[in-house]
Structure formats: C-alpha cells, structure tokens
C-alpha cells in the first residue's frame, strides 16, 4: 500500500494502533451489510456487501448511516 497525499503520514496514521470497533455482518431488507452495532437495535453501516450495484446508491445504506434492526 502506498499513500500519495499532502497530509503527513504521522497524522494520517494517528490512532492506527487502537483496536478496531467490532462489526457484524447482517442482512437488512435483502442487502448484506457490515455493521457497527450500537444501542437500541441501532447500528452504523460500515459497508455494503452486494453484487447489485443499485444497493450502493441506496441512501439509507451509505457508510456512516444508522439502520434499525429488529
């Protein structure tokens, strides 16, 4: 991996040693999502795992958005 950026590498990689937040893979509305579980059946989307490109345009599954699973 090679970074080509104007930001100093030390700043980019700051906090790299911290343990990553655990994620779960779950199917919601027929779309497989990697989620960061939160409270009250809420979870933050980390990424979409799908071969259907239209799933990636769905605004409710954009990385960072909150989904509800019950």
């Amino acid at each position, binding site marked *: 991996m*090679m*970074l*080509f*950026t104007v930001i100093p590498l030390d700043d980019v990689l700051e906090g790299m040693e911290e343990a*990553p937040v655990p994620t779960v893979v779950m199917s919601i509305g027929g779309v497989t999502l990697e989620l960061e579980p939160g409270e009250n059946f809420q979870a933050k989307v980390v*990424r979409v795992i799908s071969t259907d490109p239209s799933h990636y345009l769905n605004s409710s599954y954009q990385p*960072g*958005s909150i989904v509800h699973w019950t």
Partner: protein
Amino acid sequence: MSEYEERHDEELSLETIKELGQMEVPASAGEESQPFHCLTIIGQIEGHMVLPPRNKTTKYEHVIPQLVAIEQNPKIEGLLVVLNTVGGDIEAGLAIAEMLKTMNTPTVSLVLGGGHSIGAPIAVAADYSIISATATMTIHPIRLSGLVIGVPQTYEYLDKMQERVIRFIVKHSRVGTEALRDMMFRTGELVRDVGTVLVGDEAVKVGLMDEVGGVATALSRLSQLVSGEGKVQ
C-alpha cells in the same frame, strides 16, 4: 401527515445531519430522480487499509459499485464528481480515475477547495474538468511509506508508481510529461518539500484542468456533454 409522522421525519433528518453532516434534500414534486448524479470525493481516499477514524475518508469499495450502478442506469444522464481531497491510496485513486475515464455516462469534475496528490488523476479523468477560482491542486512526488529498504530496487519501484500517475495525468489532460515532471520536482514553492501548488486558473493555464468555474458551469457543461455538443478531449 400526522403529528407523530412529522416528528419522526424531523428526527430522521436530524439524524442525517448528525451522522453524515449532510441534509437530505427533498425530491421536488413530480420528479422521481434527478438526471445528474453527484459523487463527492472528500478527505483521504481509503484503499487497502482502513484508516483511523480521525480521518475523513472516501471508501473506494463503495464508490466503484456506485459508478457501475450509475453507468447501468439509463435514467442517470450524467455524473458530476465534486472533489475536495487531500489524496490517499494510489491504487484506490487510480481505480476510481480509470472507472470514471471508461464510463460512457458523461462526467464532469469540479475541484473545490483542494484536489491534491492522487486527487489530480481523478480530476482529469472526467470528460470535462473544472476548478473553482480559489481551489488548489498540489502536484508533488510520491513519498516513501511503509517498509523501506535502502536498495536501488526501492527507488525503482517508487519511480514506477510515480510513472503510473504521471502517465495517467498526461494521457487525460493537456499537460505534457516534461511539464508535469518539472512541476512535481520544483523546489522552493512548498515548505521543506518539492512540488507545485496550482491555484484556480494556474491549473487551467498549465493544461491540467479545462476551465475555472463553479457548480453552474459544471452543470451546464454536463448538459452540453449529454446533448452531444462540445465534446472535449
């Protein structure tokens, strides 16, 4: 709409603002979707390595299927790529640039704020490239990161990576190899570093970008590309 529904809607939009810093724009009446889509490439372009959460990133594994979806959807007539990026992973950046370049859907790029480092190939990959008057683009050599062994092979490898970026920019803009190389290794312009900062019309003058403008310019150029007039490059 009942009071409950209204409140629920409000909560949802507040949530959108909180989580993404974005507001959901309500679709105008009678129009299901817009003919032009807008892809924002912001912060670091994240590639093979997940960057620490302090970084604002554009995830390339998400952008690439989006481009495929846009290319396949006949309702989407054009794509506006808005860039404000500090660079990032070379392979991910070049992947996005190659995808944009090889799309049949007309594309226009608009650099706002900054389109630095690996942002430059993405900016020139669009059919027409626009830079706002105050936006900057930094052209500089690739630096060493990760495992570095002090042998000639390391430098040869680095040179090869550099060459990929140069070749792409030269092929898809009006700038020549020598001129680009000269800008990349110029001294005295960046603090303790080599490279060149291009502001607005300077990027147009050297032939990297096509025009200085804003969102209205970008959208009218996109309309022209869609209607088939004034195909550039």
